[in-house]
Protein backbone atom coordinates (compact mmCIF):
# COMPACT_ATOMS: atom_id res chain seq x y z
CA UNK A 1 0.00 0.00 0.00
CA UNK A 2 1.20 3.50 -0.68
CA UNK A 3 1.81 6.05 2.02
CA UNK A 4 -1.43 8.03 1.66
CA UNK A 5 -3.89 5.15 1.96
CA UNK A 6 -1.74 3.62 4.66
CA UNK A 7 -1.93 6.86 6.67
CA UNK A 8 -5.69 7.00 6.27
CA UNK A 9 -5.99 3.42 7.52
CA UNK A 10 -3.85 4.24 10.54
CA UNK A 11 -5.93 7.35 11.22
CA UNK A 12 -9.14 5.32 11.10
CA UNK A 13 -7.76 2.81 13.58
CA UNK A 14 -6.68 5.77 15.70
CA UNK A 15 -10.19 7.20 15.52
CA UNK A 16 -11.59 4.00 17.05
CA UNK A 17 -9.04 4.24 19.87
CA UNK A 18 -9.88 7.92 20.28
CA UNK A 19 -13.61 7.20 20.52
CA UNK A 20 -13.24 4.60 23.26
CA UNK A 21 -10.64 6.67 25.06
CA UNK A 22 -12.83 9.77 24.95
CA UNK A 23 -15.69 7.91 26.63
CA UNK A 24 -13.43 6.60 29.35
CA UNK A 25 -11.58 9.83 29.93
CA UNK A 26 -14.83 11.81 30.04
CA UNK A 27 -15.91 9.61 32.95
CA UNK A 28 -12.60 10.06 34.75
CA UNK A 29 -12.67 13.80 34.16
CA UNK A 30 -16.27 14.14 35.36
CA UNK A 31 -15.52 12.30 38.60
CA UNK A 32 -12.44 14.39 39.24
CA UNK A 33 -14.13 17.62 38.24
CA UNK A 34 -17.19 17.29 40.45
CA UNK A 35 -15.88 15.16 43.33
CA UNK A 36 -12.16 15.99 43.34
CA UNK A 37 -11.59 12.25 43.52
CA UNK A 38 -8.75 10.76 41.48
CA UNK A 39 -10.33 7.44 40.65
CA UNK A 40 -7.50 4.97 40.24
CA UNK A 41 -10.06 2.16 39.86
CA UNK A 42 -11.50 3.74 36.70
CA UNK A 43 -9.66 1.28 34.43
CA UNK A 44 -11.25 -1.61 36.32
CA UNK A 45 -14.73 -0.32 35.53
CA UNK A 46 -13.67 -0.43 31.88
CA UNK A 47 -12.37 -3.98 32.36
CA UNK A 48 -15.60 -4.97 34.12
CA UNK A 49 -17.53 -3.53 31.19
CA UNK A 50 -15.65 -5.80 28.81
CA UNK A 51 -15.74 -8.90 31.03
CA UNK A 52 -19.41 -8.49 31.91
CA UNK A 53 -20.18 -7.91 28.22
CA UNK A 54 -18.82 -11.41 27.60
CA UNK A 55 -20.92 -12.82 30.45
CA UNK A 56 -24.15 -10.99 29.66
CA UNK A 57 -23.89 -11.57 25.90
CA UNK A 58 -23.45 -15.29 26.62
CA UNK A 59 -26.43 -15.40 28.97
CA UNK A 60 -28.59 -13.60 26.43
CA UNK A 61 -27.79 -16.24 23.83
CA UNK A 62 -24.94 -14.51 22.00
CA UNK A 63 -25.15 -12.99 18.54
CA UNK A 64 -26.54 -9.55 17.92
CA UNK A 65 -29.26 -9.78 20.63
CA UNK A 66 -26.59 -10.83 23.14
CA UNK A 67 -24.46 -7.85 22.28
CA UNK A 68 -27.36 -5.42 22.48
CA UNK A 69 -28.33 -6.85 25.87
CA UNK A 70 -24.75 -6.30 27.07
CA UNK A 71 -24.66 -2.78 25.64
CA UNK A 72 -27.74 -1.80 27.61
CA UNK A 73 -27.34 -3.79 30.82
CA UNK A 74 -23.60 -3.75 31.53
CA UNK A 75 -23.09 0.01 31.94
CA UNK A 76 -26.06 0.04 34.33
CA UNK A 77 -24.71 -2.89 36.35
CA UNK A 78 -21.27 -1.30 36.62
CA UNK A 79 -22.79 2.09 37.50
CA UNK A 80 -24.77 0.45 40.30
CA UNK A 81 -21.61 -1.23 41.56
CA UNK A 82 -19.81 2.13 41.54
CA UNK A 83 -22.64 3.78 43.47
CA UNK A 84 -22.31 1.02 46.06
CA UNK A 85 -18.55 1.62 46.24
CA UNK A 86 -19.19 5.35 46.69
CA UNK A 87 -21.63 4.75 49.56
CA UNK A 88 -19.53 2.07 51.21
CA UNK A 89 -16.07 3.58 50.84
CA UNK A 90 -15.65 7.09 49.42
CA UNK A 91 -18.40 8.73 51.45
CA UNK A 92 -16.95 7.31 54.64
CA UNK A 93 -13.67 9.03 53.80
CA UNK A 94 -15.52 12.35 53.34
CA UNK A 95 -14.08 12.40 49.79
CA UNK A 96 -10.70 13.41 51.15
CA UNK A 97 -8.49 13.77 48.04
CA UNK A 98 -5.56 11.77 49.38
CA UNK A 99 -7.39 9.03 51.21
CA UNK A 100 -9.66 8.36 48.24
CA UNK A 101 -6.61 7.70 46.06
CA UNK A 102 -5.51 4.96 48.42
CA UNK A 103 -9.07 3.66 48.67
CA UNK A 104 -9.56 3.48 44.91
CA UNK A 105 -6.25 1.62 44.59
CA UNK A 106 -7.81 -0.91 46.95
CA UNK A 107 -10.98 -1.04 44.86
CA UNK A 108 -8.79 -1.58 41.78
CA UNK A 109 -7.22 -4.73 43.22
CA UNK A 110 -10.47 -6.06 44.63
CA UNK A 111 -12.21 -5.75 41.25
CA UNK A 112 -9.25 -7.18 39.39
CA UNK A 113 -8.96 -10.22 41.65
CA UNK A 114 -12.72 -10.77 41.61
CA UNK A 115 -12.56 -10.77 37.81
CA UNK A 116 -9.68 -13.25 37.89
CA UNK A 117 -11.57 -15.54 40.26
CA UNK A 118 -14.89 -15.32 38.47
CA UNK A 119 -13.84 -15.01 34.85
CA UNK A 120 -10.38 -16.52 34.75
CA UNK A 121 -7.09 -15.49 33.19
CA UNK A 122 -8.12 -16.03 29.56
CA UNK A 123 -8.82 -13.35 27.02
CA UNK A 124 -12.19 -13.92 25.42
CA UNK A 125 -13.96 -12.22 22.53
CA UNK A 126 -17.54 -11.21 21.99
CA UNK A 127 -18.83 -11.39 18.42
CA UNK A 128 -19.72 -8.00 16.98
CA UNK A 129 -23.42 -7.65 16.15
CA UNK A 130 -22.49 -6.82 12.55
CA UNK A 131 -19.14 -6.68 10.85
CA UNK A 132 -19.25 -5.78 7.19
CA UNK A 133 -16.03 -4.83 5.51
CA UNK A 134 -16.40 -1.48 3.85
CA UNK A 135 -13.79 -0.76 1.20
CA UNK A 136 -12.72 2.87 1.08
CA UNK A 137 -11.72 4.83 -1.99
CA UNK A 138 -8.54 6.81 -2.44
CA UNK A 139 -7.86 9.63 -4.86
CA UNK A 140 -4.79 9.20 -7.03
CA UNK A 141 -3.37 12.03 -9.06
CA UNK A 142 -2.74 10.38 -12.39
CA UNK A 143 -1.54 11.97 -15.62
CA UNK A 144 -5.12 12.84 -16.58
CA UNK A 145 -6.12 14.40 -13.25
CA UNK A 146 -7.62 12.84 -10.11
CA UNK A 147 -8.73 9.20 -10.35
CA UNK A 148 -10.76 7.34 -7.77
CA UNK A 149 -9.05 4.06 -6.86
CA UNK A 150 -9.83 1.31 -4.38
CA UNK A 151 -6.47 0.33 -2.89
CA UNK A 152 -6.33 -3.23 -1.67
CA UNK A 153 -6.54 -3.38 2.11
CA UNK A 154 -7.95 0.12 2.59
CA UNK A 155 -11.13 -0.68 4.47
CA UNK A 156 -12.88 -0.39 7.78
CA UNK A 157 -15.54 -2.59 9.33
CA UNK A 158 -19.05 -1.37 9.89
CA UNK A 159 -18.65 -2.23 13.57
CA UNK A 160 -15.71 0.14 13.97
CA UNK A 161 -17.72 2.92 12.36
CA UNK A 162 -20.50 2.10 14.81
CA UNK A 163 -18.09 2.46 17.75
CA UNK A 164 -17.04 5.91 16.54
CA UNK A 165 -20.65 6.96 16.00
CA UNK A 166 -21.85 5.53 19.32
CA UNK A 167 -19.11 7.29 21.27
CA UNK A 168 -19.80 10.58 19.50
CA UNK A 169 -23.52 10.26 20.24
CA UNK A 170 -23.02 9.42 23.91
CA UNK A 171 -20.54 12.26 24.37
CA UNK A 172 -22.90 14.71 22.69
CA UNK A 173 -25.60 13.46 25.06
CA UNK A 174 -23.28 13.96 28.03
CA UNK A 175 -22.57 17.51 26.87
CA UNK A 176 -26.29 18.25 26.61
CA UNK A 177 -26.87 16.68 30.02
CA UNK A 178 -24.24 18.91 31.62
CA UNK A 179 -25.18 22.15 29.88
CA UNK A 180 -28.92 21.95 29.19
CA UNK A 181 -30.57 20.04 32.01
CA UNK A 182 -31.38 20.65 35.65
CA UNK A 183 -29.36 17.71 36.82
CA UNK A 184 -26.39 19.05 34.84
CA UNK A 185 -26.82 22.43 36.51
CA UNK A 186 -26.91 20.73 39.89
CA UNK A 187 -23.73 18.79 39.09
CA UNK A 188 -21.92 21.94 37.97
CA UNK A 189 -23.05 23.90 41.01
CA UNK A 190 -21.76 21.08 43.22
CA UNK A 191 -18.48 21.13 41.33
CA UNK A 192 -18.09 24.90 41.72
CA UNK A 193 -18.95 25.19 45.42
CA UNK A 194 -20.05 22.15 47.33
CA UNK A 195 -20.90 23.95 50.55
CA UNK A 196 -22.95 26.69 48.93
CA UNK A 197 -24.73 24.06 46.83
CA UNK A 198 -25.90 22.48 50.09
CA UNK A 199 -27.22 25.79 51.35
CA UNK A 200 -29.45 25.82 48.28
CA UNK A 201 -30.98 22.44 48.89
CA UNK A 202 -28.67 20.37 46.70
CA UNK A 203 -28.14 16.92 48.24
CA UNK A 204 -24.44 16.79 47.55
CA UNK A 205 -24.08 13.19 48.73
CA UNK A 206 -26.59 11.99 46.18
CA UNK A 207 -25.00 14.09 43.44
CA UNK A 208 -21.64 12.48 44.20
CA UNK A 209 -23.10 8.98 44.06
CA UNK A 210 -24.73 9.82 40.74
CA UNK A 211 -21.54 11.29 39.29
CA UNK A 212 -19.44 8.33 40.41
CA UNK A 213 -21.98 5.95 38.88
CA UNK A 214 -22.12 7.96 35.66
CA UNK A 215 -18.32 8.04 35.38
CA UNK A 216 -18.08 4.28 35.91
CA UNK A 217 -20.94 3.68 33.48
CA UNK A 218 -19.07 5.61 30.77
CA UNK A 219 -15.95 3.49 31.35
CA UNK A 220 -18.04 0.32 31.26
CA UNK A 221 -19.70 1.43 28.02
CA UNK A 222 -16.24 1.93 26.52
CA UNK A 223 -15.39 -1.60 27.68
CA UNK A 224 -18.50 -3.10 26.08
CA UNK A 225 -17.81 -1.30 22.81
CA UNK A 226 -14.22 -2.50 22.67
CA UNK A 227 -14.70 -6.28 23.31
CA UNK A 228 -15.67 -7.14 19.74
CA UNK A 229 -12.40 -5.51 18.64
CA UNK A 230 -10.09 -6.42 21.52
CA UNK A 231 -10.80 -9.37 23.73
CA UNK A 232 -11.90 -9.09 27.35
CA UNK A 233 -9.13 -9.77 29.84
CA UNK A 234 -8.91 -9.16 33.55
CA UNK A 235 -5.75 -7.05 33.24
CA UNK A 236 -6.95 -4.78 30.43
CA UNK A 237 -7.76 -1.89 32.80
CA UNK A 238 -4.15 -0.85 33.41
CA UNK A 239 -3.24 0.51 29.98
CA UNK A 240 -6.67 2.06 29.60
CA UNK A 241 -6.27 3.88 32.90
CA UNK A 242 -2.85 5.21 31.93
CA UNK A 243 -4.12 6.51 28.59
CA UNK A 244 -7.16 8.08 30.25
CA UNK A 245 -4.97 9.88 32.74
CA UNK A 246 -2.78 11.11 29.89
CA UNK A 247 -5.86 12.41 28.07
CA UNK A 248 -7.35 14.06 31.13
CA UNK A 249 -4.09 15.76 32.08
CA UNK A 250 -3.46 17.03 28.55
CA UNK A 251 -7.05 18.16 28.13
CA UNK A 252 -7.28 19.88 31.48
CA UNK A 253 -8.73 18.19 34.55
CA UNK A 254 -12.48 18.54 34.68
CA UNK A 255 -12.87 20.08 31.21
CA UNK A 256 -15.07 18.01 28.91
CA UNK A 257 -14.12 19.78 25.64
CA UNK A 258 -10.43 19.55 26.58
CA UNK A 259 -10.84 15.84 27.26
CA UNK A 260 -12.38 15.30 23.82
CA UNK A 261 -9.64 17.22 22.01
CA UNK A 262 -6.94 15.37 23.91
CA UNK A 263 -8.59 11.98 23.28
CA UNK A 264 -8.64 12.63 19.55
CA UNK A 265 -5.03 13.84 19.66
CA UNK A 266 -3.78 10.86 21.65
CA UNK A 267 -5.99 8.32 19.84
CA UNK A 268 -4.91 9.46 16.39
CA UNK A 269 -1.24 9.77 17.23
CA UNK A 270 -1.36 6.38 18.95
CA UNK A 271 -2.95 4.82 15.86
CA UNK A 272 -0.63 6.47 13.38
CA UNK A 273 2.63 6.06 15.28
CA UNK A 274 1.79 2.45 16.16
CA UNK A 275 1.22 1.60 12.52
CA UNK A 276 4.27 3.36 11.09
CA UNK A 277 6.72 2.91 13.94
CA UNK A 278 5.84 1.00 17.06
CA UNK A 279 3.23 1.03 19.82
CA UNK A 280 6.01 1.61 22.34
CA UNK A 281 7.09 4.79 20.58
CA UNK A 282 3.44 5.91 20.61
CA UNK A 283 3.30 5.48 24.40
CA UNK A 284 6.64 7.24 24.82
CA UNK A 285 5.44 10.22 22.82
CA UNK A 286 2.13 10.39 24.71
CA UNK A 287 3.95 10.35 28.02
CA UNK A 288 6.36 13.00 26.79
CA UNK A 289 3.38 15.14 25.80
CA UNK A 290 2.06 14.86 29.34
CA UNK A 291 5.40 15.94 30.72
CA UNK A 292 5.46 18.94 28.37
CA UNK A 293 1.91 19.92 29.28
CA UNK A 294 2.69 19.63 32.99
CA UNK A 295 5.70 21.88 32.59
CA UNK A 296 4.37 24.51 30.20
CA UNK A 297 0.61 24.46 30.76
CA UNK A 298 -0.13 22.69 34.04
CA UNK A 299 -3.85 23.40 33.81
CA UNK A 300 -4.03 21.44 30.52
CA UNK A 301 -5.17 22.64 27.11
CA UNK A 302 -8.65 23.73 28.18
CA UNK A 303 -8.43 23.72 31.95
CA UNK A 304 -8.53 26.87 34.02
CA UNK A 305 -5.58 27.79 36.22
CA UNK A 306 -6.20 27.15 39.88
CA UNK A 307 -7.59 30.20 41.64
Amino acid at each position, binding site marked *: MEFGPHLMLAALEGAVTAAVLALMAAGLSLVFGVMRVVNVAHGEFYMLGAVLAFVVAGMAGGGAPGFVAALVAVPLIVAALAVAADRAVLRRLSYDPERTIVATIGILYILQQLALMGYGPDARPVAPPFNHRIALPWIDWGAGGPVLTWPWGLSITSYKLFVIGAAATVLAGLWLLMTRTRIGLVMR*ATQLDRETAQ*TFGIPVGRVYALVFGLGAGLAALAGVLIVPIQQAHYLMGGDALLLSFIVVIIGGLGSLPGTLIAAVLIGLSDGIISVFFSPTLAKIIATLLVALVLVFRPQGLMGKPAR
Partner: protein
Amino acid sequence: MLEVQGIDAGYGPVQVLRGLSLDVRPGEITCLLGRNGAGKTTTMKAIMGLLPLGAGRITLAGEDIGRLPAHEVPRRGIGYIPQGRRLFAELTVAQNLEIGLMTRNSPRHVLTRVLDLFPRLADRMGQRAETLSGGEQQMLATARALCLEPRVLLLDEPTEGLQPSMIEAIRQVVIRLKSEGVAILLVEQRLDAVLSAADRVVFIENGQVRETADAADLRARPELLKRYLGV
Protein backbone atom coordinates in the same frame (compact mmCIF):
# COMPACT_ATOMS: atom_id res chain seq x y z
CA MET B 1 -39.28 32.17 64.40
CA LEU B 2 -35.68 30.92 64.46
CA GLU B 3 -34.38 29.93 67.86
CA VAL B 4 -30.83 28.89 68.59
CA GLN B 5 -30.53 27.37 72.05
CA GLY B 6 -27.18 26.70 73.69
CA ILE B 7 -25.35 25.30 70.68
CA ASP B 8 -21.80 23.99 70.60
CA ALA B 9 -20.28 23.77 67.14
CA GLY B 10 -16.93 23.95 65.39
CA TYR B 11 -14.70 22.50 62.74
CA GLY B 12 -13.63 18.94 63.51
CA PRO B 13 -11.70 19.05 66.77
CA VAL B 14 -11.78 22.87 66.92
CA GLN B 15 -14.72 24.04 68.98
CA VAL B 16 -15.77 27.59 68.10
CA LEU B 17 -19.27 28.12 69.48
CA ARG B 18 -19.85 27.49 73.17
CA GLY B 19 -23.43 27.39 74.35
CA LEU B 20 -24.54 30.11 71.97
CA SER B 21 -28.18 31.18 72.03
CA LEU B 22 -30.12 33.74 70.07
CA ASP B 23 -33.48 34.16 68.47
CA VAL B 24 -34.59 35.86 65.33
CA ARG B 25 -38.16 37.13 65.12
CA PRO B 26 -40.37 37.76 62.12
CA GLY B 27 -40.34 41.36 60.91
CA GLU B 28 -37.23 42.14 62.92
CA ILE B 29 -33.59 42.61 62.12
CA THR B 30 -31.35 40.92 64.64
CA CYS B 31 -27.80 42.05 64.29
CA LEU B 32 -24.88 39.85 65.23
CA LEU B 33 -21.82 41.87 66.17
CA GLY B 34 -18.39 40.79 67.26
CA ARG B 35 -14.74 41.08 66.44
CA ASN B 36 -13.11 39.17 63.61
CA GLY B 37 -12.93 35.52 64.53
CA ALA B 38 -15.62 35.79 67.21
CA GLY B 39 -17.70 33.10 65.51
CA LYS B 40 -20.30 35.05 63.53
CA THR B 41 -19.85 33.13 60.28
CA THR B 42 -19.63 29.91 62.23
CA THR B 43 -22.99 30.68 63.82
CA MET B 44 -24.54 31.08 60.38
CA LYS B 45 -22.99 27.86 59.12
CA ALA B 46 -24.29 26.02 62.16
CA ILE B 47 -27.79 27.34 61.50
CA MET B 48 -27.52 26.18 57.89
CA GLY B 49 -26.69 22.66 59.07
CA LEU B 50 -23.17 22.78 57.64
CA LEU B 51 -21.53 22.03 60.99
CA PRO B 52 -22.51 19.21 63.34
CA LEU B 53 -23.94 20.40 66.67
CA GLY B 54 -22.14 19.16 69.75
CA ALA B 55 -24.94 20.37 72.00
CA GLY B 56 -28.07 22.50 71.92
CA ARG B 57 -31.04 22.88 69.60
CA ILE B 58 -32.03 24.95 66.61
CA THR B 59 -35.73 25.32 65.92
CA LEU B 60 -37.60 27.02 63.12
CA ALA B 61 -41.22 27.85 63.97
CA GLY B 62 -41.09 25.06 66.52
CA GLU B 63 -39.58 22.41 64.24
CA ASP B 64 -36.22 21.03 65.29
CA ILE B 65 -33.92 21.67 62.31
CA GLY B 66 -30.60 21.32 64.12
CA ARG B 67 -30.01 17.74 63.06
CA LEU B 68 -31.38 17.82 59.54
CA PRO B 69 -29.06 17.03 56.65
CA ALA B 70 -27.66 20.37 55.43
CA HIS B 71 -29.61 20.40 52.16
CA GLU B 72 -32.93 20.09 54.04
CA VAL B 73 -32.40 23.30 56.03
CA PRO B 74 -32.88 25.80 53.18
CA ARG B 75 -35.93 23.84 52.06
CA ARG B 76 -37.58 24.85 55.33
CA GLY B 77 -37.33 28.46 54.17
CA ILE B 78 -33.97 29.80 55.28
CA GLY B 79 -32.16 31.94 52.73
CA TYR B 80 -28.41 32.36 53.19
CA ILE B 81 -26.21 35.10 51.80
CA PRO B 82 -22.75 33.89 52.75
CA GLN B 83 -19.72 36.01 53.51
CA GLY B 84 -17.77 36.69 50.31
CA ARG B 85 -20.96 36.05 48.25
CA ARG B 86 -19.97 32.53 47.17
CA LEU B 87 -21.67 32.74 43.79
CA PHE B 88 -21.41 29.85 41.35
CA ALA B 89 -18.75 31.81 39.49
CA GLU B 90 -18.80 30.02 36.14
CA LEU B 91 -22.58 29.88 35.92
CA THR B 92 -24.63 32.69 34.47
CA VAL B 93 -26.77 35.07 36.49
CA ALA B 94 -29.85 33.19 35.29
CA GLN B 95 -28.39 29.83 36.33
CA ASN B 96 -27.44 31.13 39.78
CA LEU B 97 -31.01 32.32 40.24
CA GLU B 98 -32.33 29.04 38.86
CA ILE B 99 -30.54 27.20 41.66
CA GLY B 100 -32.22 29.50 44.16
CA LEU B 101 -35.61 28.79 42.58
CA MET B 102 -34.99 25.04 42.57
CA THR B 103 -34.36 24.93 46.32
CA ARG B 104 -38.06 24.98 47.18
CA ASN B 105 -39.53 24.67 43.68
CA SER B 106 -40.53 28.32 43.72
CA PRO B 107 -43.05 29.33 41.08
CA ARG B 108 -41.84 31.44 38.18
CA HIS B 109 -43.40 34.68 39.38
CA VAL B 110 -40.97 34.70 42.29
CA LEU B 111 -38.18 35.38 39.83
CA THR B 112 -40.09 38.32 38.37
CA ARG B 113 -40.52 39.76 41.84
CA VAL B 114 -36.86 39.30 42.73
CA LEU B 115 -35.73 40.92 39.49
CA ASP B 116 -38.02 43.87 40.27
CA LEU B 117 -35.93 44.40 43.38
CA PHE B 118 -32.68 44.18 41.40
CA PRO B 119 -33.38 45.51 37.89
CA ARG B 120 -29.65 45.58 37.10
CA LEU B 121 -29.56 41.81 37.21
CA ALA B 122 -32.37 41.52 34.69
CA ASP B 123 -30.10 43.07 32.06
CA ARG B 124 -27.31 40.62 32.79
CA MET B 125 -29.07 37.29 32.91
CA GLY B 126 -26.77 35.62 30.37
CA GLN B 127 -23.55 36.93 31.87
CA ARG B 128 -21.29 34.73 33.97
CA ALA B 129 -21.45 35.60 37.66
CA GLU B 130 -17.67 36.06 37.90
CA THR B 131 -17.81 38.90 35.36
CA LEU B 132 -20.15 41.05 37.47
CA SER B 133 -18.91 43.99 39.54
CA GLY B 134 -18.66 43.54 43.30
CA GLY B 135 -21.93 45.32 43.93
CA GLU B 136 -23.74 43.34 41.26
CA GLN B 137 -22.34 40.15 42.73
CA GLN B 138 -23.76 41.07 46.11
CA MET B 139 -27.10 41.80 44.46
CA LEU B 140 -27.00 38.40 42.80
CA ALA B 141 -26.14 36.64 46.07
CA THR B 142 -29.06 38.42 47.70
CA ALA B 143 -31.41 37.74 44.79
CA ARG B 144 -30.43 34.06 44.77
CA ALA B 145 -31.39 33.75 48.44
CA LEU B 146 -34.67 35.60 47.88
CA CYS B 147 -35.58 33.13 45.12
CA LEU B 148 -36.51 30.61 47.76
CA GLU B 149 -39.05 32.99 49.34
CA PRO B 150 -37.35 32.77 52.72
CA ARG B 151 -39.08 33.07 56.08
CA VAL B 152 -35.68 33.69 57.60
CA LEU B 153 -32.79 35.45 55.88
CA LEU B 154 -29.19 35.21 57.02
CA LEU B 155 -26.84 37.91 55.71
CA ASP B 156 -23.14 37.62 56.46
CA GLU B 157 -21.36 40.96 55.99
CA PRO B 158 -23.36 41.90 52.89
CA THR B 159 -21.81 45.34 52.54
CA GLU B 160 -18.17 44.23 52.82
CA GLY B 161 -16.15 46.09 50.20
CA LEU B 162 -19.08 47.86 48.54
CA GLN B 163 -19.51 51.48 47.48
CA PRO B 164 -21.93 53.58 49.53
CA SER B 165 -24.55 53.57 46.75
CA MET B 166 -24.57 49.78 46.68
CA ILE B 167 -24.69 49.58 50.47
CA GLU B 168 -27.75 51.79 50.38
CA ALA B 169 -29.41 49.62 47.72
CA ILE B 170 -28.85 46.47 49.77
CA ARG B 171 -30.08 48.25 52.89
CA GLN B 172 -33.31 49.27 51.19
CA VAL B 173 -34.00 45.69 50.19
CA VAL B 174 -33.33 44.41 53.69
CA ILE B 175 -35.67 46.99 55.20
CA ARG B 176 -38.34 46.08 52.68
CA LEU B 177 -38.04 42.38 53.55
CA LYS B 178 -38.32 43.26 57.20
CA SER B 179 -41.54 45.12 56.50
CA GLU B 180 -42.83 42.01 54.69
CA GLY B 181 -42.34 40.03 57.90
CA VAL B 182 -39.13 38.16 57.07
CA ALA B 183 -37.00 37.32 60.10
CA ILE B 184 -33.52 38.69 59.44
CA LEU B 185 -30.19 37.83 61.02
CA LEU B 186 -27.54 40.28 59.91
CA VAL B 187 -23.81 40.16 60.51
CA GLU B 188 -22.04 43.46 59.97
CA GLN B 189 -18.78 45.13 60.83
CA ARG B 190 -20.02 48.62 60.06
CA LEU B 191 -22.03 49.49 63.14
CA ASP B 192 -23.28 52.84 61.86
CA ALA B 193 -24.95 51.18 58.87
CA VAL B 194 -26.58 48.58 61.07
CA LEU B 195 -27.64 50.44 64.10
CA SER B 196 -30.25 52.61 62.41
CA ALA B 197 -32.03 49.60 60.92
CA ALA B 198 -31.57 46.94 63.61
CA ASP B 199 -34.14 45.96 66.19
CA ARG B 200 -31.87 43.96 68.43
CA VAL B 201 -28.15 43.49 68.68
CA VAL B 202 -26.37 40.35 69.87
CA PHE B 203 -22.72 40.77 70.82
CA ILE B 204 -20.59 37.69 70.62
CA GLU B 205 -17.07 37.00 71.76
CA ASN B 206 -15.15 33.73 71.65
CA GLY B 207 -18.19 31.90 70.40
CA GLN B 208 -20.35 33.01 73.31
CA VAL B 209 -23.05 35.64 73.59
CA ARG B 210 -21.75 38.51 75.73
CA GLU B 211 -24.87 40.63 75.64
CA THR B 212 -28.15 41.07 73.87
CA ALA B 213 -29.41 44.61 73.64
CA ASP B 214 -32.27 46.56 72.19
CA ALA B 215 -31.06 48.64 69.27
CA ALA B 216 -33.09 51.58 70.52
CA ASP B 217 -31.16 51.51 73.82
CA LEU B 218 -27.86 51.43 71.99
CA ARG B 219 -28.81 54.36 69.87
CA ALA B 220 -29.58 56.25 73.07
CA ARG B 221 -26.44 55.06 74.91
CA PRO B 222 -23.56 54.67 72.44
CA GLU B 223 -21.12 54.07 75.30
CA LEU B 224 -22.45 50.51 75.49
CA LEU B 225 -20.98 49.87 72.05
CA LYS B 226 -17.55 50.88 73.27
CA ARG B 227 -17.80 48.41 76.06
CA TYR B 228 -18.69 45.47 73.86
CA LEU B 229 -16.62 46.18 70.81
CA GLY B 230 -13.85 48.45 71.96
CA VAL B 231 -14.64 50.99 69.24
